[in-house]
């Protein structure tokens, strides 16, 4: 199970959820449900999600089957840089987009499906070797705060382990095990600075080896 590329499935799910949102939105606005504006929102959100998810991400290993005509959308999606490349951001974005549609019966299924897709995107970011035994990020950040040396070493460890590849000419690989979200990296830096030290060149401290 460790080799499964969850993000590919999440991509299919998000695309299908977009279609479900559009259908629910059409039913809501055409059926003249009360609060039909949620239906209109659902159509717009559905179209946005479909366009975002249409390009299939490149697989970590093996060939990727591209969808028909996806290269046009890929060019547009890449314009938004890290907001679309990063799967954490996508997961959060899908979760936020799905919430307003939950207020109307016609679109509630779209909410459920998009929320599931968001969950699978999050799951895809957990490294396979560390699923189940990974201490949460908050705990590691707490360790940072305890002391300068500890902060530096933990920071160095994380920067080394989670250094994000900045040169991507294509969409992100389906399995991004060791990509840190940029916001978390900023947080680690901030905490390290707060605990009183300049982050130096990263080196792996032996004690933190897992």
């Amino acid at each position, binding site marked *: *199970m460790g*080799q*499964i*590329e*969850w993000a*590919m*499935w999440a991509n*299919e*799910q998000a*695309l*299908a*959820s977009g279609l*479900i949102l559009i*259908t*629910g939105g059409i*039913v*809501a606005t055409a*059926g003249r*449900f009360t609060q039909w504006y949620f239906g209109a929102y659902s159509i717009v959100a559905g179209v946005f999600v479909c366009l975002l998810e249409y390009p*299939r991400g490149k*697989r970590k290993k*093996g060939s990727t*089957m591209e*969808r*028909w005509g996806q290269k046009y959308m890929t060019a547009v999606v890449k314009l938004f840089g890290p907001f679309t490349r990063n799967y954490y951001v996508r997961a959060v974005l899908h979760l936020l987009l799905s919430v307003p549609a939950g207020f*109307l*019966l*016609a679109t*509630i*299924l779209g909410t*459920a*499906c998009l929320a*599931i897709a968001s969950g699978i995107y999050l799951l895809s970011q957990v490294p396979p070797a560390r699923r189940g035994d990974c201490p949460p990020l908050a705990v590691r950040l707490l360790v940072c705060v305890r002391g300068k040396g500890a902060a530096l070493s933990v920071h160095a460890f994380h920067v080394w382990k989670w250094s994000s590849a900045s040169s991507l000419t294509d969409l992100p690989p389906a399995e991004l095990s060791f990509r840190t979200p940029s916001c978390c990296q900023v947080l680690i830096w901030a905490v390290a600075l707060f605990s009183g030290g300049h982050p130096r060149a990263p080196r792996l401290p032996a004690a933190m080896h897992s």
Partner: protein
Amino acid sequence: MGEEMWRKREEVIFSEYSFSFYPLNIFAPFVLFPDYFCLLGFIWLSMNVLLFWKTFLLYNQGPEYHYLHQMLGLGLCLSRASASVLNLNCSLILLPMCRTLLAYLRGSQKVPSRRTRRLLDKSRTFHITCGVTICIFSGVHVAAHLVNALNFSVNYNEDFVELNAARYRDEDPRKLLFTTAISECSQAQHLGNIASASQAAGITVPGLTGVCMVVVLFLMITASTYAIRVSNYDIFWYTHNLFFVFYMLLTLHVSGGLLKYQTNLDTHPPGCISLNRTSSQNISLPEYFSEHFHEPFPEGFSKPAEFTQHKFVKICMEEPRFQANFPQTWLWISGPLCLYCAERLYRYIRSNKPVTIISVISHPSDVMEIRMVKENFKARPGQYITLHCPSVSALENHPFTLTMCPTETKATFGVHLKIVGDWTERFRDLLLPPSSQDSEILPFIQSRNYPKLYIDGPFGSPFEESLNYEVSLCVAGGIGVTPFASILNTLLDDWKPYKLRRLYFIWVCRDIQSFRWFADLLCMLHNKFWQENRPDYVNIQLYLSQTDGIQKIIGEKYHALNSRLFIGRPRWKLLFDEIAKYNRGKTVGVFCCGPNSLSKTLHKLSNQNNSYGTRFEYNKESFS
């Protein structure tokens, strides 16, 4: 794990056609296979259209649904019509998955016609077609019911309260679907009113189960696309097993009894006039008639009977009574579901006893052969089995074609596995110690502790048909030679009982060492036919598609094969012309086990006409 199986199967068996969820190439089979499959497709389509139309008309015009139709409108008709189509497809979709039954039908005398047996090759296509239909009509059904929920609340009927699903006019549809039962049920139960509690539960059970079913269907469909099946077979396999949850929810979903029909049509014809009601509204009868019928009232109020005779106005004798429909879905799905469960039980019992591994042989180019015996195991050449080794993985089953079938004299059967992916790698490490993996023959070790291995099968495949043609062309690509190996083994044993009189065997490989997997078998077969004075029975051609320019031979002792070894890819058009010329007027069965591109080329050539009157019938494997 799933990937390696699909890589292997990709080489070995091509998928039916690149079916992916979004572009609908559902009509491709009808164009490509103009035979009984077309007829079956036409019958299936007609049944769906008929059911949809009949149910639509029933709810649109049927008198027993008059009041309900007044309340809900088009949504009622669409939802029920799509439900009847869903009933049909949910029952039919299970039938192609009864693989043991299909294998039995393929081999039995009850299906004598080859054309009918070819229908069984399309079982997976049929399953996918039913699946897509379920998906589309579920969408229609859900959309229509959403509109129904709205109409139930907006068109709340004060006259016939029991017909309503809402508690009051303009109730929020979400509350209608999800929360009606919780408060009413508890209230009713508190008051000891079981009938009303069950009615309240009946309102929300379809709603909740419906939403859960859509979520389950969503998970199953998104994981069943071609891209996912090819890259992550595991996701597809594990989510597809949710079908059982889907069927349980379906059984509950239809028990709600939300939509009711009128039972007393004779005493209360729909649209009849209730005298009690009109008198309470203080309207006199003539005025009532003129208001409602917009026609000049015939002179004289004294002839209401004549008037009623001409205009068929009925007077209501009593209030309408409503009753929920009997859940027809239970009748539709019970048969196939029981059949499928019986088959799974039979397969479980049959595969519960482990096999005894006789020997494990390591071949070049990462191939391993396993020979085993099992009591009461019978298989026909071309069939495949699935292997399950709990020491490697508790949950996974992987299919492998039999390369040697048990005969009357010899109970040993075998499979050749290509080591691609982690399941086969771990399996090989368990069976062969790493030190001896390089050598070809394993030294006999007395106390060999092989892991427990369970097999399921055998299951049928189109390659079994190759012995039923007078002339067969078998094309193998790489490890795709395995189904033909079992055919060749059978011919080596005894060729006379079969209809086959000439076999063209083309084997294309990338690596010269791959030919050594069956070089002995091919040589023995060749020698046997030469000795029996049938040198033209088997025509072997071996092609080495990639070469680095160095002259290669398979092995010094394989003279017959070396002289039949060609460098480069085969020229299929010339080959087909040659076969057509030497088998004029005959029907040649074409079988291919290899990459997609190869199968497409052969299929296209098989459909082309030739001047010799020879017909090529292409048989396609469908991995099911």
